[in-house]
């Protein structure tokens, strides 16, 4: 490549310097406690955006269910790290859950046997019938067990409580759970065109959220769980700055490590192969690449990062509330971060995440102030009677702006602020 390091990275440096300036201004005007909090959340979003940018930017997979993976990760981390609930362990709850797991394992084996029965000379039709029977039996047994389990646990001990393990274990499990869900979704949809993946991820996200909202026995449903433990010293006695700063450094370290690994992967043969599949699927297939399984690979990897980021986010908030997972904040905001920052460019994803998150947080007071002006003048000049839910309506303006940003970026700057830089070999 021609030009020195500075020449090549001028755009990145300018944008990141501008971002640093913005952060500095916020620190000066809003105080450190508030700004640290914003930066931690932006860091968690950066992790999630990295997950999305490898799915979309490296492999061209359209995932509209980011919220589902975040929620799944957050819920599993809560279950792993929250202190144990002695009522549950003293009741018959553990037996019920163990029985459920045994039944689940049996159903999985049954289904697997039905699925491979073709190898033992079972005909196609019979195999289909066997699979349907296996699914039906498994569903009836499991849902019946789940109903009684949920009722008894809720009656005896409220909910099953956590396992009380260290937070880092929780975060890793969060990634694993999100990855497992992604594997199932990918296995079904990734052989087909990306529209199907979009539809399926949309569905899975809604279902995960519905499940978490209604599963009182598992995660207290909408009753919320708090306080969630932190991996670092919790803030005590009003001393927020140290606690938040150490959380921030932890998040930053995680983001940097993941960033370095992803950069390495992008420039490695693996990344080159992914881009080849993205840009010309037929050619890649003709070269002997297994397109579907590579896509599953990267879809799972991206979702692992989303689950991980979701867990970091929820522990920082310290309160787990399934109604708090919104398509807007946890799917589409992240999409804006990725496509505005530049899809396929990890630096772009990080820049986009921090920048868009700051704008997003700032947009609430700005919108309210703006609409307050409209209300004042509307009342004064036109005798207008503003509706009682005026403020909550005003915030809907942000939904509109997010949608507008997506369509405008796609049309006028499809490569984003920091375009992907493809190495020429």
């Amino acid at each position, binding site marked *: 490549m021609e030009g020195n390091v500075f020449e090549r990275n001028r755009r990145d440096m300018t944008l990141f310097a501008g971002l640093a300036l913005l952060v500095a201004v916020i620190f000066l005007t809003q105080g450190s406690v508030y700004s640290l909090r914003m930066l931690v959340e932006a860091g968690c979003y950066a992790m999630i955006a990295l997950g999305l940018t490898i799915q979309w930017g490296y492999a061209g997979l359209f995932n509209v269910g980011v919220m589902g993976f975040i929620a799944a990760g957050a819920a599993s981390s809560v279950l792993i790290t929250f202190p144990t609930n002695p009522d549950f362990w003293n009741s018959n709850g553990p037996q019920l859950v163990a029985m459920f797991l045994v039944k689940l394992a049996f159903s999985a084996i049954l289904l697997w046997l039905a699925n491979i029965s073709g190898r033992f000379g079972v005909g196609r039709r019979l195999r289909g019938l066997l699979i349907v029977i296996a699914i039906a039996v498994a569903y009836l047994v499991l849902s019946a067990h789940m109903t009684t389990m949920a009722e008894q646990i809720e009656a005896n001990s409220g909910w099953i409580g956590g396992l009380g393990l260290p937070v880092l274990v929780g975060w890793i499990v969060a990634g694993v759970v999100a990855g497992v869900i992604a594997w199932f979704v990918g296995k079904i949809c990734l052989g*087909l065109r*990306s529209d199907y993946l979009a539809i399926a991820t949309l*569905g899975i996200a*809604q279902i995960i959220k*519905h499940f978490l909202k209604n599963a009182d026995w598992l995660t207290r449903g909408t009753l919320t769980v708090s306080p969630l433990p932190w991996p670092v010293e919790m803030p005590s006695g009003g001393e927020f700055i140290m606690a938040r700063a150490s959380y921030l450094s932890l998040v930053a370290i995680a983001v940097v490590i993941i960033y370095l690994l992803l950069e390495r992967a992008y420039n490695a043969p693996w990344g080159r192969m992914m881009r080849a599949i993205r840009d010309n699927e037929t050619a890649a297939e003709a070269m002997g690449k297994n397109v579907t399984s590579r896509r599953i690979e990267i879809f799972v990897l991206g979702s692992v990062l989303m689950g991980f980021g979701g867990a970091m986010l929820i522990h920082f908030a310290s309160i787990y509330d399934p109604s708090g997972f919104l398509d807007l904040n946890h799917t589409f905001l992240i999409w804006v971060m990725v496509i505005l920052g530049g899809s396929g460019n990890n630096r772009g994803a990080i820049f986009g995440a921090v920048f868009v998150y700051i704008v997003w947080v700032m947009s609430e007071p700005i919108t309210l102030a703006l609409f307050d002006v409209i209300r004042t003048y509307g009342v004064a000049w036109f005798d207008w009677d503003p509706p009682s839910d005026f403020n*909550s309506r005003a915030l809907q303006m942000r*939904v*509109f*702006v997010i949608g507008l940003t997506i369509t405008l970026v*796609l049309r006028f700057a499809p490569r984003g602020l920091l375009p992907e830089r493809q190495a020429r070999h």
Partner: protein
Amino acid sequence: MNDLVFFINKGLLSGMIIGSIYAMGAIGVTMIFGILRFAHFAHGDMMTLGAFVTLIIAALLASAGVVLPFPIAFAAIIPAMAVTAVLAIGLDKMFYKPLRNAGARPVVLVMASVGVTLMLQGLIRLFAGVRARDMFIDQPKDIFQIPFPGATRAVILTEPQVVLIGFTVVAVLALHLFLTRSRLGKAMRAVSDNPELARITGINTNHVVWATWIIGGGLACAAGSLLSMDVTLKPDLSFNILLPIFAATIVGGIGQPYGAIAGGFLVGFCETLAVFNWSVLLRPIQDSLWFELPRNMALVPTEYKLMVPFVILIIVLIYRPTGIFRGRVL
């Protein structure tokens, strides 16, 4: 017998009603999918938009002093369909056409439609708030009670439900005639089957695209309005109704309007029958059963209703990605 009537009311009729809604939504989605080749995520919000247009026209008519022998909202649907169709074409011109002309990948169009759905959602809620509204401005809806032989309960149908079922039949017939008899309809089928071939035979693609949005937008408006007349008008349809509609589209086969109708009813019936409490039907023959009837024998708890279209979608994607009517796999 009363239990049977209960089954007809709660199972069959509600399945048919929600099925008609899904069918009308899915026709639009399947035609857009077939002709423009992308999954239109803004369809749910287009339905909400159509319902609001109907409400506004009905309110205007009412304030102009128009009195009709039936609720004004029904009369307002027809002009509202026209308005929504025009709006749909406008959305296409502003947001999808530039991308198509620039040769963007289909998935970019899907993403743009997600952007459009957010914009519509934001605007509707900005101007109308999120509270529920009554589509019948101060007019009661008629409720028809059809006596059922041998039962004290009656089969219950409300006025919007009757209109909805009638409308669906008319719309399906009209669509069939349009697609098989008219020049434009045949052109649409040709473009859906093979766009390149259609273009070199001299079919005007622009007209085909317009016709697609007119049909899609008009039916979305009708479905949205009739659904909100049956219950209330709330701007929360978007993603919740999108999944069943997409499931209906894919079950029916992409690009197959008849498949979409079949798929819509299939998904609608599956949904209501899955949450239906089957022990009601078995209760009369409890004595001859070998087990104690549980209180609730629904296959799926009501709060997980959304699971049903999703599971249907997954099963179809695994075993028959072309759908029942042999649509395209994109």
